[in-house]
């Protein structure tokens, strides 16, 4: 849970609009680029009711999705959620059973992979082992029958782009993992496709290199002005790079939104739990007094007080989701109105350097998680094992989710 907002700032800032109607500045809003909110904008790629089955397994289940020109779009989900199948259908390696995929308004049905104006960067990179780096990059250009001079010029351009000019004559097995990844990238963008598909592009890299490459990919996308579609199971990767994320689950889309939207206003328990850590409280709406709602829950004697965004009518069973970093922990009872305060005991402490995660046991053996940034190097009285603590959160920290 480090700095999810450290991404691009190139597109300026604009307040985000939470889906509850109330204008909230949520998270780190980075960009005013939002063609999906513009009714006049036409999507580059449109999935319409697309389904795909393999035997008795439904890989993709009635997915509709628009991706706009210039967007960096992420398909995020655990393995087997259908994200890769969705991408492979766009590349032409799988055929949808039902539904339609259009690219720039043109129906892709029946168009073989080699005639589709998209290029893919494969998870395994799929570099041709018998060809040198420059021949790999030239492969796609050769198929177009471009003149030799033009091909070599473009290959040099690509080699410079990925800083591999010195390695032009090497074979793929003489390269490191990071270099292979860059060759694969150069090969995929060499043809200037309308859209670049990236299948787990950073999966094989170590953590440091992965972070660097994330920013390189983002810069590259802006530089090339290309539309990127990335498939990943790594939420941090998706959050850092993407303009919008589609969180997938069992072949369906659980939620689509900007990273800060899916993180701060998850649509359901699945999204809340898949992205980052979350404490979920089973609750029932007891009263709504705009702008506040009161929820009855076992953990809170006088109930939880939260904003009434998207809150169903009183009597409904709901879940209250509160992120660990939005909770406060103290050795003394917090001052204030006493709402949203729970007393408990420290059960476990996980120190990661920048953050400390406290697992707090509430009465009834209920464990919750509280994260605190280690903003100062020294504290007067550190919180230790078996300490009695108070955990509290602000009314706007919780999200009411349908049960």
């Amino acid at each position, binding site marked *: 849970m480090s700095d999810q907002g450290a991404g691009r700032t190139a597109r300026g800032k604009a307040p985000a609009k939470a889906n509850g109607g109330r204008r909230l500045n949520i998270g780190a809003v980075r960009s005013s680029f939002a063609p999906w909110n513009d009714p006049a904008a036409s999507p580059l790629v449109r999935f319409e009711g697309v389904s795909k089955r393999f035997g008795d397994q439904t890989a993709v289940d009635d997915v509709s999705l628009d991706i706009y020109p210039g967007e960096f779009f992420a398909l995020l989900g655990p393995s087997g959620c259908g994200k890769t199948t969705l991408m492979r259908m766009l*590349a*032409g*390696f799988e055929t949808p059973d039902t539904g339609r995929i259009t690219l720039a308004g043109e129906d892709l049905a029946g168009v*073989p*992979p*080699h*005639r*589709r104006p*998209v*290029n*893919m960067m*494969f998870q*395994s990179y*799929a*570099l*041709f*082992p*018998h060809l040198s780096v420059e021949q790999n990059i030239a*492969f*796609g250009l050769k*198929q*177009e029958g471009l003149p030799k001079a033009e091909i070599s010029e473009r290959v040099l351009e690509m080699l410079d782009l990925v800083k591999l000019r010195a390695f032009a004559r090497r074979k793929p*097995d003489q390269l490191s993992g990071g270099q292979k990844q860059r060759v694969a990238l150069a*090969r*995929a963008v060499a*043809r200037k496709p309308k859209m670049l598909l990236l299948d787990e592009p950073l999966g094989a890299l170590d953590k440091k290199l992965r972070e660097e490459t994330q920013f390189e990919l983002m810069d590259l996308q802006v530089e090339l002005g290309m539309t990127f579609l990335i498939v990943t199971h790594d939420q941090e990767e998706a959050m850092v790079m993407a303009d919008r994320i589609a969180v997938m689950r069992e072949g369906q889309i659980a939620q689509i939104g900007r990273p800060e939207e899916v993180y701060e206003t998850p649509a359901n328990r699945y999204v809340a739990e898949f992205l980052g850590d979350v404490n979920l409280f089973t609750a029932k709406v007891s009263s709504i007094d705009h702008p506040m709602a009161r929820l009855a829950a076992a953990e809170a004697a006088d109930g939880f007080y939260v904003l009434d965004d998207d809150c169903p009518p009183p009597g409904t069973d709901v879940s209250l989701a509160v992120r660990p970093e939005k909770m406060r922990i103290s050795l003394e009872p917090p001052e204030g109105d006493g709402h949203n305060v729970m007393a408990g005991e420290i059960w476990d402490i996980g120190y990661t350097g920048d953050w400390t995660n406290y697992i707090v046991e509430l009465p009834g053996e209920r464990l919750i998680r509280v994260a605190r940034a280690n903003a100062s190097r020294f504290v007067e009285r550190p919180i230790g094992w078996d300490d009695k603590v108070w955990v509290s959160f602000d009314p706007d920290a919780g999200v009411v989710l349908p049960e």
Partner: protein
Amino acid sequence: MKSPLPRPSALIPYLWLLLFFALPFLMVFRLSLSDSALAIPPYTPQIDWGGGLAGLKAFLDGLDFDAYGRLVGDRLYVNAYVSSLVFAAQGTALALLLGYPMAYAMARCKPGARNLLLMLVILPFWTSFLIRVYAWVGILKPEGLLNAGLGLLGLPHVDLLYTPAAVQIGLVYSYLPFMVLPLYAVLEKQDQTLLEAAADLGSPPWKSFWQVTFPMSLPGVFAGCLLCFIPMVGEFVIPDLLGGPGSLMIGRSIWMEFFANRDWPFASAVAVVLLITLILPIILYQRQQVKALEAGR
């Protein structure tokens, strides 16, 4: 720390080579320098082990290159070498043309079917080579299976037995597994994602075959060709059983010289020259194998 001596197990291949290659070769080479004689064994000189150094000297004086001289002087043998190489080259090319599609189709089958097909390719080895070649006599003879089949289809008879074509059929049939197996091994290993990558980069399937599948299978093509070519050059059973007087092959000549003419020195000289002819392809094959091993590491 460098160990000056290789481990004992590393010596086993050398011992093997010494016992089964170098020693027999030296014996054949020594034979080729001898002269034919009406004796048992049918050549002179023999080493007189009791004669000491003088005996050894007499033995060495008795050795000469006469057999090689006769070999070079006789057009028949030069022709036999050339025709063997031509037979083997044609047979190898035919085996490649037949074997590549076979291996390709096998490698594209479902894993279960692949094992079955692989079994079928190896199955002929369960029967004696000689019997299998004899079987071709039964197929190719004028009133044989082939002509019976052609007759049923209303096609004219062909007279293949004892022609060069029959030898070629026999060679291709016998050595086809040696072509198919190495080809299958490389094709089966090939990453299918590479073909997807080629398609993604704009290459239609037939072009992908020539740009990706085939160049990547070259080590297998090379291994298969050498594995067919080398034994085909020296083949003697097939030309003997299926070939006529027109299908001259050097292996058969060696056999004739050894067993029909009982001219052991001359037969040995023919064999030594054959080995020298084949050294180049054998070295090429060895280097290829080493390269393949290193690439697989």
